[in-house]
C-alpha cells in the first residue's frame, strides 16, 4: 500500500507532569475522512497543534506527503498543503468575507512583497476566492464584513479559507462547535461534498456528524489512541464504549 498522506510515529508531548500526547501513531490516507474523537482534555487539540506546527513534540516524528515535517515551521507546513481551520472562529473581522478568502488565496499565490498594486483588484485572487465561497455556500455573503456573519457562516468562511491553495489535507478542529442542528447539517453537507477527493482529519464532538462523515475513527483518551477503525468497529469496541461513548452510543 502507498504511504499514507500524513502519519505520526509515536508522538509524545508533555506539559509539566501532564502527558498530553502519549506515543500517538495515527495516519490519514489520501482522500479519506479520518475523525479524531475523545472526551474533553483527551489531547485532541494538542495533537493537531503538533501537526500544524504551533506546538513542538517532545519525541516522535510527523511525516506529510512523503517528507519529515517534524521540525518545519507552521507557515512552511501550510505551504506544503496542510491547512487547518480553527476551533475558536478566527477570521479577520473587519475585512469582508471575500477579502478574507482572497487573503488566504494570496498566501499560496506567490510572495506578497508587492507594495503598490491594489490587492483587491487582483482578478486571479478575487475569482479564486469567489469560487471557494461558492463551494462552501457563502457566495451571497461575499461582501459582508466577517464580523457581521452569523456563527455558522463564520465557520463556513473558515472552511473556505482553509481550502485556499488547494490543500492536500484539511485539519478541521471542531467545525460544528456552537452550531445549531440546522447549521450542523449544512456543514455536514459541505464537508461530505469533499469526500473522496480531499483528505481530512476531523476533530468533532458532534457524534452524529462524525458517524455520518468519517471513513475511519481514532479514539483518544488521556493522550493515548485507544482504538482506531471504521465507524462500525468503533461503535462495537467495548473499550471505547466504556471510556468514552458511554450512554451516547446507540
Amino acid at each position, binding site marked *: 500500500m502507498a504511504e499514507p498522506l500524513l502519519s505520526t510515529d509515536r508522538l509524545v508531548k508533555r506539559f509539566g507532569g501532564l502527558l498530553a500526547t502519549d506515543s500517538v501513531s495515527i495516519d490519514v490516507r489520501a482522500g479519506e475522512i479520518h475523525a479524531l474523537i475523545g472526551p474533553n482534555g483527551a489531547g485532541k487539540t494538542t495533537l493537531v497543534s503538533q501537526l*500544524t506546527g*504551533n506546538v513542538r513534540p517532545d519525541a516522535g516524528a510527523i511525516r506529510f506527503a512523503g517528507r519529515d515535517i517534524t521540525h518545519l*515551521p*507552521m*507557515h*512552511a507546513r*501550510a*505551504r506544503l498543503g496542510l*491547512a*487547518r481551520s*480553527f476551533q475558536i472562529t*478566527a*477570521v*479577520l*473581522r*473587519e*475585512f*469582508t468575507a471575500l*477579502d478574507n478568502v482572497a*487573503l*488566504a488565496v*494570496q*498566501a*499560496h499565490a506567490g510572495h*506578497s*512583497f*508587492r*507594495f*503598490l*498594486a*491594489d*490587492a*483587491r483588484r*487582483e482578478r486571479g485572487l478575487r475569482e479564486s476566492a469567489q469560487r471557494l465561497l461558492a463551494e462552501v455556500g457563502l457566495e451571497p455573503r461575499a461582501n459582508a464584513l466577517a464580523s457581521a456573519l452569523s456563527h455558522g457562516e463564520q465557520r463556513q468562511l473558515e472552511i473556505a*479559507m482553509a481550502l*485556499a*491553495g488547494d490543500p492536500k489535507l484539511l485539519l478541521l478542529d471542531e467545525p460544528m462547535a456552537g452550531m445549531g442542528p440546522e447549521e450542523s447539517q449544512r456543514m455536514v453537507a459541505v464537508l461530505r461534498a469533499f469526500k473522496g477527493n480531499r483528505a481530512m482529519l476531523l476533530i468533532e464532538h458532534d457524534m452524529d456528524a462524525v458517524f455520518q462523515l468519517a471513513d475511519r475513527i481514532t479514539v483518544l483518551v488521556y493522550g493515548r489512541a485507544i482504538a482506531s477503525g471504521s465507524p462500525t468497529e468503533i461503535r462495537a469496541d467495548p473499550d471505547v464504549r466504556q471510556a468514552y461513548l458511554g450512554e451516547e452510543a446507540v
Partner: protein
Amino acid sequence: MIAGLRTPRGLITAILLLVLAILPLLTQAFDQRYLLSIGTRIVIWSIAAISLNMILGYGGLVSFGHAAFFGIGGYAVGILYANGITTGWIQWPVAIVAASVWAGLIGALSLRTRGLYFIMITLAFAQLVYYVGAGLEAYGGDDGLNISRSRFSGLIDLRDKAAFYWLCFVLFCATLWFCGRLVNSRFGLVIRGAKANDLRMTALGFAVFRYRLAAFAISGAFGGLSGILLANEGAYISPAMMSWVKSGDLIVIVVLGGMGTLCGPLYGAIAFFALEETLKPLLDLAHKGWGEYWQIVFGPMLVLIALYARGGLDSLLGRRHG
C-alpha cells in the same frame, strides 16, 4: 476622487491639503511668517507620524522608539556636514539607508517579542541611540551641533523658507500616497491581517515575521526622511530630537489622529501643534509662565479622546467604509 469630496472626511481633507499646498502664499499675504515655520514642522512630523502609523496603526506594533529615526536621519546629515560633505545628494540617501538598516536591526530583535516586551525593547534601542548621540563629543555631545541646510546646487535652495516648505510638502504628499498604496497592496493586507490575528496569518502560510521586518525597514526609511527634514528645518541637530518624549509625542499624534487611518497622522499633527501654539499663549495670558505647562490641559484632552473617540479625530469625521 470627486465623489470623495461629498463626505465630510473627503471635504475636510481636501481643504487641509489645499491650505497646506499654498501655505507659503497665505503666510506671506497675511504677513504671518511664523505660521510657515509651524506649518513646516507639521508637515515634517506628519511624515514621521505616517511612518509610525504604518507599523503601529496598520501593523499593530507599538513601537516606542520612533524618535530614534529623527535622530539617525538628522545625525547622518549633521555628521556628513561636519566632515565637509554638504551636498544633499549624498547626505539624504545615506541618512535614509542608515535609518532603514537600523530599523531592520531593531526589528530583527524586537519582533521576536510581544506586547509590553516589544514596547520596552524598542524604547531601549531608542535610548541607546540617544546616549550614543549625546556621547558624540566631536559632534556637540549634549549640546548638539549647528549645521547648514543641505545643498542641492542649482536645483533648489533650501535656505529659502518657502522653497524648503514646499519640498517638505511634496515629500509629505509622496509619503501619504505611498502609504495609501502600501496598505491596500498584498504586502499591506498581510501586515493588517497579522495585526488582527498573526497566528491565523501564519497558519494560512504567511511568514509573518519577514513581512513585519520589511514593514519596519520601510517605516524606518520614512522616519529617517523626517529626521533629515527636521535637522534641515532647525539647521541644528541634538540628542533632544530623539529623546523618548518625542517618541511619545509621535504615538500621541498617531492615536489622536486615528490609528490605522490614512490621514489620521496629518489630523493628529495639526491638532498637536495647533493646541501647543494656542494653549501656550492662552495659559501665559492667564498667568505668566503657565504656558510651559500646556500639557496639563492637553493631557485631559487626550484622555477624553481615548475614552470617547476611540478612532481618534478621524472617527469624528464620520464612519469609514472598507
